[in-house]
Structure formats: C-alpha cells, structure tokens
C-alpha cells in the first residue's frame, strides 16, 4: 500500500447551493414569548421544513384539539418534553438559504436556563433575544443579554415580537428600543439591532411587513443573511494549540512529524517564525499540510497539520504562537464562571480537572471573589458556594501553566471547562480575564 488517500478522483468545487458560509445563532426565551413559533416560521418560510415533519405537526396539533398547526412542536423533541409541555435541553436546528447555512442553538427559558444559554451562546455569532411587545423589557430580556455579552457573542438582535397584538404601533416599538438601549449601554454589546416582528403572522421574519411601513430596517432573515461576521474572528494573534502529533508508523512516510490542530486565532503561513510553548523555543513553519495538500495559509477554524523546520519536543497541549505575540503563561487564573452541576456546588478549596484548549490539568479553587446575580447584576461578596445556574468570579491555581488570553480578546484561548474528578461531569464553563462589563 503506497497511499492512504481515499479517492482517485480529484475534489471539485462544491455545488453552488452550499457555497455560502456558516452562521451560528443562539435563541433564548420562555414558552410564551413566541420563540418556538419564530423558529418554526424561519424554517417554514425558508422551506426548511419537510412535508412529513409538517404532516406530523399538523396531526399532533389536531389530536390535541388545537385550531392551528403548532409550529413549536417542530422543536420539542423528547417524549418527556412533549408529555410535560416543556423544553429540557439545547436543541440544534438547521436551515440554509442560497447565501448561508444557519445553525440555531435553541435554548429553553425555565430553571436550567442559564446553563443551556451559556452552552448555546458559547459558539454563537449572533444572539437572538425575543421581547413581547405587550410586556416590554423584562428581567429575562436583561438576563439573556447579559449572558450573551458575557459569552462574547458579537451581535445581538432584539426581535420585538407580537407586534400584531399592539396594532403594529411604532410608538410601542420605539419605547422598547429606547429602554433596551439604555440597559444595554451598561454591557459591552458591539452590535445591537432591533426588528419589530410578528412570528405568528410572519411580519418581518422572512418578508417585509406590509403592516409596519414605518420600519426601514431589514426583515430578520435578510439581516441574518447579510450580517458581517468575518471581522469578528481574531486574525491577529496566532494561537495554535497542538491537538495531536502525527507520526506515521508506516514505511512510506516514516520521517513525517506533523502537529495537528485547529487554528484558534491568527493567520499562519509557511516561513513564519514561531515560538513553541512551554518549551520556549523558536523555529519556522516549514509547511502547513492538509489531506488535500499543503496550503499557503491557515486561519480559524481550519484543521491543519503544521510541520516545523527544527525538531523540537512538542506534544498535545502545547501551543504554537509568534515570538513577538505570546499568550500569558500562568498557573493563576481569574475567571468568570457559570456553574452547571445540580448535584454539587462549587466550594473554596475544592479541586477539579480543568480543560483549556487541548490541555488538561488540575485546578484548585483559591477564592470565590463574588457571586453575580444574573437578574440584577448585583455582586454578593460574601458568597461561599456557587450553585447550579449561578455565575461567579473566582480565582484558580492550576497544577501546570496554561497559555491564556482574556476571553473578550479570544474566545478560544480565554475559555475553559471544569470537570468533577469523581463523577467526570462537566460542572462549569469559565471565561478568563478582567471584568468584561460595567455593572
């Protein structure tokens, strides 16, 4: 055997139907604010619902004695959820237009809300916040927005929903916009957009509303299609966490030694001078390989294999960066965390496993600085334990150095998870760095 390449055929250009890019957005909300209906509407009007799925929804709606097809049934997947009429977990939905493929992380609004919202927002480019036009900005809208900004979601779109129930009144919309903007000014929201919609009637979801001629912005779908997300990515700071060392144990490639990984940030090119951490040794990139051949540059989120000019002892968990632009090397971590475990609380002095990029270590909780009330943003500096769905600022001591950046500057190298060493459960999401918000 001389090759492990799968195909004799030469890869061709993808079909134009899938030539767009990928946009991930997170939605959050409770049963009543029309979130499921809005998603159902996006899927339905963009023709992403299949005939048999719609048929099943119509049948179930009829069995329940509903007057109209309940589009929220499209998103409530598990039997326990249908029986209890609640949503348990983050659900992922997909739809595509000729411009983009969309991944929706749909998160429920009840008690486990914070954990799910953090999960959904962690990878999102956009957070979609729903506000009921009749109720205005409520506690939950503030909480959603706070979490979205904490998780570094660069774009926030506020859909003022149920405009049909307030006679499509511009004044109602403007009042909510003003109140929301005032609240959001205390947070770091790089891009904030407001759209008046009726998910049930379809106003301003996919097509422009005839009922709200006063609104000169785009309908939701066109806005999502056009949103510029390329510049959200950090293309400045080269960070390449080594994931796996490829050393073929076969005759045809015996001398090959490549460092496989996903580019966390920055743009890497062959010939670039690089620094390997923790070794602290400098070398140059000889080649950036993929199964389709070498490439002339690599940027996030490409998965590539880097070969270096010099033989350096590098293994999984190490980091490749530029000599003049290095992350902080530290065993002391200041971070904002969201606690996600229902069976045990975070307490001072306890030890956990920590995963940061591709590196595992152990971490001890040195201090709980304060707990943040996600509804009022109030800080409680006397807190001694952190329970499920609570947020806190803590200080960790780690058994070996991590190569970190502030989360607000780098969502890859600024993030970590804590894992309970006894149960192996993922118990916390952590975001490294100084206070991101002026609350």
């Amino acid at each position, binding site marked *: 055997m001389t090759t492990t390449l799968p195909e004799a055929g030469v890869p061709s250009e993808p*079909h134009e139907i899938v030539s767009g*890019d990928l946009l991930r957005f997170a939605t959050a909300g409770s049963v009543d604010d029309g979130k499921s209906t809005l998603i159902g509407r996006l899927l339905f009007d963009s023709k992403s619902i*299949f005939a048999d*799925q719609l048929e099943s929804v119509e049948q179930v709606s009829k069995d329940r004695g509903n007057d109209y097809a309940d589009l929220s049934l499209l998103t409530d997947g598990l039997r326990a959820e249908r029986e209890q009429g609640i949503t348990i977990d983050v659900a992922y939905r997909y739809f595509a237009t000729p411009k983009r493929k969309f991944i929706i992380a749909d998160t429920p609004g009840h008690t486990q809300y914070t954990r799910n919202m*953090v999960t959904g927002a962690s990878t999102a480019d956009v957070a979609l916040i729903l506000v009921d036009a009749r109720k205005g900005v409520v506690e939950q809208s503030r909480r959603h927005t706070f979490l979205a900004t904490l998780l570094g979601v660069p774009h926030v779109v506020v859909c003022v929903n149920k405009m049909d129930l307030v006679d499509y009144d511009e004044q109602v919309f403007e009042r909510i916009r003003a109140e929301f903007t005032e609240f959001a000014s205390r947070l770091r929201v790089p891009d904030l957009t407001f759209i008046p919609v009726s998910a049930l009637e379809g106003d301003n979801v996919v097509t422009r509303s005839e009922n709200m001629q006063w609104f000169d912005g785009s309908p939701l779908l066109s806005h999502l299609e056009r949103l510029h997300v390329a510049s959200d990515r950090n293309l400045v700071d080269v960070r390449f966490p080594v994931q796996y060392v490829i050393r073929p144990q076969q005759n045809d*490639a015996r001398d090959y030694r490549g460092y496989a990984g996903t580019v966390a940030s920055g743009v890497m090119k062959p010939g670039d001078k690089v620094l390997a951490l923790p070794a602290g040794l400098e070398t140059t990139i000889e080649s950036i390989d993929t*199964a389709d051949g070498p490439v002339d540059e690599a*940027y996030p989120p490409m998965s590539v294999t880097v070969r270096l000019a010099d033989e350096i002892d590098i293994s999984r968990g190490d980091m490749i960066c530029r000599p003049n632009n290095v992350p902080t090397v530290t065993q002391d971590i200041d971070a904002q965390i969201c606690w996600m475990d229902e069976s045990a609380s975070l307490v001072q002095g306890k030890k956990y496993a920590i995963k940061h990029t591709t590196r595992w270590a152990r971490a001890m909780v040195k201090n709980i600085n304060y707990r943040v009330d996600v509804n009022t943003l109030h800080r409680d500096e006397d807190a001694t334990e952190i329970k499920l769905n609570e947020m806190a600022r803590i200080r960790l001591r780690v058994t070996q150095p991590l190569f970190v950046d502030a989360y607000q500057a780098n969502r890859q190298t600024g993030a970590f998870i804590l894992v309970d060493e006894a149960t192996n459960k993922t118990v916390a999401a952590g975001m490294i760095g100084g206070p991101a918000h002026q609350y």
Partner: protein
Amino acid sequence: MKSHVLSQLRSLEAESIHIMREVVAEMQRPCLLFSGGKDSIVMLHLAVKAFAPARVPFPIMHVDTGLNFQTVLDCRDRWVERTGVQLVVASVPEAIDRGLVQEEPNGSRNRIQTPVLLEAAEKHGFDALFGGGRRDEEKARAKERVFSFRDDFGQWDPKNQRPEIWNLYNGRVHQGESIRVFPLSNWTELDIWAYIEAENIDLPDLYLAKEREVVERNGMLYEVNGFTPLKDGETAQVRSTRYRTVGDANLTACVESAATTLHDVVEEVAAVRLTERGATRGDDKVSEAAMEDRKKEGYF
C-alpha cells in the same frame, strides 16, 4: 486580500476533523461504526483526512445483519483495501444462533443489532464509538451531544447529558462506561451530498438512479430481489429508482428518481420535500418516540 472565511462545507469538515482528533488523543480505544451507508462512508473519509499521511488510527466495526445489499459489502471492502483500515465484523446471524438475540416477528434486525453491537464493543474494549448520526435526522437527535455519554449498559439518558461548551469536549469515563461520538452532528443531508460530490467519494451504486424492477407496498417501492421477492398477486414494474438510505435489504425501500449522477442527487436533495428517514425506513414509522426509545437502549 483573501477573505479568510471558510465555506460552510469546509467549516463542517474542519469541525468533524477536530472532533475525531480529539477522540483519538483522549480516548483509550476508539472505533468507527461503519454501516456502509453514505454517512458512515463520509465519516471514514473524514478520518482518513484527519490523520493523513498516517493511516486511520482506529478500527471500523460493521454490525453485519446478514441482510446486506451485496454492493454495500463490495463498497466496504474497497474502502478497507484502499485505506488499510482494520475491519471488525460483528455478526447478527451468528448472535441469533448463539441465542444472544431473537429474530423479531416483522423480520427487522434493526433493534436486535443493539445487543450485538454492545457485546462486540465490550469484547474489544472500545470506549468511544464514532456514529454517523446527524441532528437534522430526527427530533430526539437534535438534542444529543457530539460526545454522548453512555453508562455501563450502553444507555443514553437524555436528562443527564454533559453540557458541551465551545469545542471543549469531555470524554472522561469510568471503567465500563463509554461515549458515542457524532462528528457529523451539524451536517444536514444536503451538506453530506454536496460534500460527497465535491470530494468525489466512492459510494455503493444503490444511491444512484437506474431502472429497477420494483413492487409497491404500502406506498413504498421495494426492488424485486432475493430479499424482497414478489408475493402472490403482486405485479412488478420497471421504474427509475434510487435508494436514499441503506438499511436491511429486506426492509429498505427505494424512491423514484432520475438522479443518475452525484450532481443530480445534490439537486434532487435540495428540492425534495421528505426527510430521508420518513421516506424510506419502515422501522422508523412505528411511533413518534421510536427513535428516542431505541437510542436509550443503546442504538445509534
């Protein structure tokens, strides 16, 4: 200046490769579940790309129901030959002979595959099994993690899933426990087909349309062959058909189609109005909760 934006297919590919490398780096003994269907073939193709120029550093396992289309077996063997990957076969007929499982009255071996799969995984000590499941396939799947924890009975508990944040996957397990890993979680059927076309991936020819002798039963078209012979009173007809999924040969229906090339299939999938499971798998129609129940038992 370059845009530094990856297309959707390259983004999905990069994510899948990241997931596979993560599993190989962290788990003791991974294995890829290979059915011979298009999703498992795409997974194997991605595995080859993830570790090139080295060979795929884990075996593939085929749970052989004894009810395979010959062209699927031929395709499997071509892949094994071409990539040098190690093949493990777990045989359902052999498990029936041993009394591990019993044939079901409706002739479906879909459900009895599960104990055979779990036994083989235990025997080989696999602690991570790659599956080709996608979240767009079915509502219960939409809520499953990429790294999906299974207890020591191989069961999935939808209410007790590990949070999955960023791309920081947690594959830590105790002895006897395992994880199922779904590298294609975020792909849709259209993505899969567009990728197969773009990468020119070798598939069983069942997926392409040709004239087949078929019989219609309950609104579904079955090819007349040794697995699904003509019954008394039925008449066969010749139609241009293809398969959208590949399951047991005695239960998988084909659909009318004129798509004779991969490009035609992409166009057809882009336009089609039925989800693939709803269209051609008799065994998924049993109840709305059918998939959820099977997953809890350890099915993919």
